[in-house]
């Protein structure tokens, strides 16, 4: 019933996973980063991670992330190629070979290309390795409503002392965005740190001007919220239920299994 996503509400056609399955995907993505799986395994995993995003009907988002990932992948492969036949040694993206390339700039265009290749390789590999986390994170964030998320946490027996702060944090994001806009307006009217570059020129002062009213308002809002929540029984002991029903269905299990398999194989060195 409640399908307002945490982020921006949008078209909600298509198939969506259970929040717990999403959390599992997020965990997998982090493991992927942790175990430094090789490029082939990573590409397969990314492709798998992108599928639920398309299944949920988030085409634009999915395409954007896919293009970004494969562009980075291509850049990385190119830099490998350039550095391999340019400097004649060193594995792609390694810092030492990049420094070598930097030292031998005078050797000619090949070496210059190698330098560019190294830098590009470094950047592309760095960002690319974050991509699985970004993709699963974007999926989890844009397709889960707060109530689903809270429900998932309660089902997983997460204590209320963790659930409630999470709810509050989610509740506060839009408030802070709104407050920030108001404060910037007020500063413009007063001629304080007006203009685009003022924030950059006087960072400390500007930060103070923004942070102090922001915190002041957060204090007021948090007290009002506590009052409202208390009168609605947030403090009641005993089990809290959820209106939203979440259920693990076959495709949740299937997705989890399908995504785990290549991961395990890659970590095991089979793939």
């Amino acid at each position, binding site marked *: *019933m*409640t*399908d*307002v996503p*945490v982020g921006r*509400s949008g078209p909600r056609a298509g198939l969506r996973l259970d929040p717990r399955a999403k959390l599992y995907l997020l965990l997998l993505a982090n493991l992927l980063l942790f175990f430094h799986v090789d490029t082939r395994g990573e590409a397969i995993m990314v492709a798998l991670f992108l599928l639920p995003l398309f299944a949920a009907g988030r085409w634009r988002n999915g395409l954007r992330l896919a293009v970004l990932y494969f562009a980075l992948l291509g850049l990385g492969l190119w830099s490998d190629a350039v550095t391999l036949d340019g400097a004649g040694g060193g594995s792609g993206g390694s810092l030492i070979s990049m420094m070598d390339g930097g030292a031998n700039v005078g050797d000619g265009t090949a070496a210059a290309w190698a330098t560019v290749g190294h830098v590009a390789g470094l950047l592309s590999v760095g960002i690319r390795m974050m991509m699985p986390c970004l993709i699963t994170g974007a999926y989890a964030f844009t397709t889960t*409503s*707060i*109530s689903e998320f809270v429900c998932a946490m309660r089902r997983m027996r997460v204590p209320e002392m963790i659930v409630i702060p999470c*709810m509050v944090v*989610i*509740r506060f994001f*839009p408030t802070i965005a*709104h*407050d920030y806009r*108001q*404060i910037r*307006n*007020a*500063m*413009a*009217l*007063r*001629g*304080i740190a*007006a203009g685009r570059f003022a924030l950059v020129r006087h960072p400390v002062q500007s930060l*103070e*001007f923004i942070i*102090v*009213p922001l915190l*002041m*308002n957060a204090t*007021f*809002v948090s*007290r*009002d*919220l*506590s*009052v*409202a*929540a*208390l*009168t*609605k*029984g*947030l*403090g*009641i*002991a*005993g*089990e*809290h*239920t*959820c*209106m*939203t*029903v979440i259920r693990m269905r076959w495709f949740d299990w299937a997705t989890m299994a399908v995504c785990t398999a290549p991961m395990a194989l890659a970590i095991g060195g089979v793939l």
Partner: protein
Amino acid sequence: MSEPSSTMSPRSGETSGTIPSRAASSPSAPIITISDTSFQYTHDDTGVGAANPTVADFASGNATSPADLALSHVNLVIRPGETVMLCGQSGCGKTTVTRLVNGLIPNFFHGPLTGTQFVCGLGGDGANGAENVPIESLVPLVGSVFQNPKTQYFNADTTSELAFPCENIGMPSADIRARVAEVARRFGIEHLLDRSVFTLSGGEKQRLAVAAATMLHPQVIVMDEPTSNLDATAMRDLHNMVAELKRDGVTVVIAEHRLAWCADLIDRYVRFDGGAVAGEYTAAEFGKLLAEQLEAWGLRAIDLAPYRAALQAKTGVAGIVPDGGEMAERTPVGHPLPAHDLNDGLPSEQGTSQPLAIAKTETSSDMPAASSVGPVIDSAGRHPSVASVLADPSEPQTECQSFVIGNVPIIATHDLTVGYRRAFRRDIADITLYGSEIVGLMGRNGAGKSTLVRTLCGLQRPLAGRILLHDAPARPTALTRAGFLVMQDVNYQLFADSVREELLLGLGDADDVIRQPVDVPIAPLNAAQSSSSGAASHGMSVRDGNTDVQPSATPYLHPATLGEQADRVLESLDLLPFAERHPMSLSGGQKQRLAIVSAIMCGKELIVLDEPTSGLDRAHMMQVGALLRGLADRGKAVLVVTHDEELAALWCDRIIDLDREVGA
């Protein structure tokens, strides 16, 4: 009593099963009994005092004199099914009573509490801390609606918010869904379900708040100033919701300044004064009270008809103004016009001449803010309502000069369309704002008032059309320099560490000037400094011209430094004693004044106020009105965005009604 309505009986069984519903035993037994109860907040004014920022005037006063009790020996009995209005001036204790009823006192707001309080059969001796009723046991019995629609939502989407109380008492999810659907149908808010709370208008938020408060089918609903941010339509919706609750036999307790919106539903009025019950009246008795009696008590009007008529008359003026014809003819004589216009419009309405008389006396007596506004610009003018330009033709204010001679409006719009690129678009009939004039901008929530105001202040670009500043097309940056917006939430607008620094902030290299001792009588004029700090120099030269006219009217007549000027402006708005205080430690009204003072210091010509009187009692509303008049008398163009019909009728010179313009 445990079954407030028959329509909801299928579900109410479960809730009342978990609830001790002793009140059901005899129908005439009181549902709320508060006897000999006294209470005092222990928090300082930065804690509780700002809980309701708009009534914080009192709260800080309360904190500074700890002897004051929030409640002293209050006796109050409310029977099941009654609809009771708690009224009285800000800080009279009515909000405190609502907090006693919903258990926030003593569970959340702490302090010494004496006497006995029973709510729905729960309660005991307040003096004995151990026997306090935990707030959790009151949750299913008492629903609460608070003043600020923005901050009473714990969830980010509407359906979750409705479900929230049910989830907390552990209802099964199917039942919660059924209950949400039932309550939404009952109040006709199905269209609000499944939306982000942040996209709702203020009125929609408050309707949702009432619906959320009734989710557990409570026997009592308390509302703490539920209408302070609402327009007339939203108040009518709220009225209908209260009527619905009353029909179902729910006891409704409303603490409110605005009395008119639900006058037909109220069974009993309880008037508080200084923390004690000053009188109880049946609806009939209260209706017979004279308007001036209510005003003497500091209450808002119970019958808005005369105010509406006055508004009507003033809105008529707005229809003529855009072409400039009538205004051009009127304005040269114009300065006294505002006040006279006010008088002309009203006496024909019976009963309204009285409020005006009171307005006048209040202006001179208990409104130091306004009466001392005069001296800063022209020391001669002691009467803020009658402009002193005619009395002193050499009025040195430059805007006024040009205004009198050329009759050039400060701001004029042509074929303006405001809005956001995709979300919202609104054509605005041409508007002309002159100096020395208070213009009210009215219209329902979402009519585009704030978008228009933001456009006029240059905070966003118009989608089409032009804005003329002194008859010359102006870019948004120029408008931002000329205009100032006093936001509804003033907390966003105060940046400095002390009140005095707040004024000097943004005036360029004023840093060393701040530290200059203030009461040096005639410091050597550092002319370079005063002229370099552009915004203020204008005001300085004004004072120079004035010096020989009125040499001894104010002690700080000779302008030496920005610091002195700041102090003078502060004094004129009664803020000088607080010059060293941190802005955030001020009360709501003082913060509002400080924001206005900062606008004056910056030499702004157009001052826009967004809902300056929301949640204010009559006296404070009149104070704000007098303040507006003081600004106008300085030659500023004052634009007030407001839903407050009393403020608009009593203090605005003309009204721009965005709702009406749609047809025109």
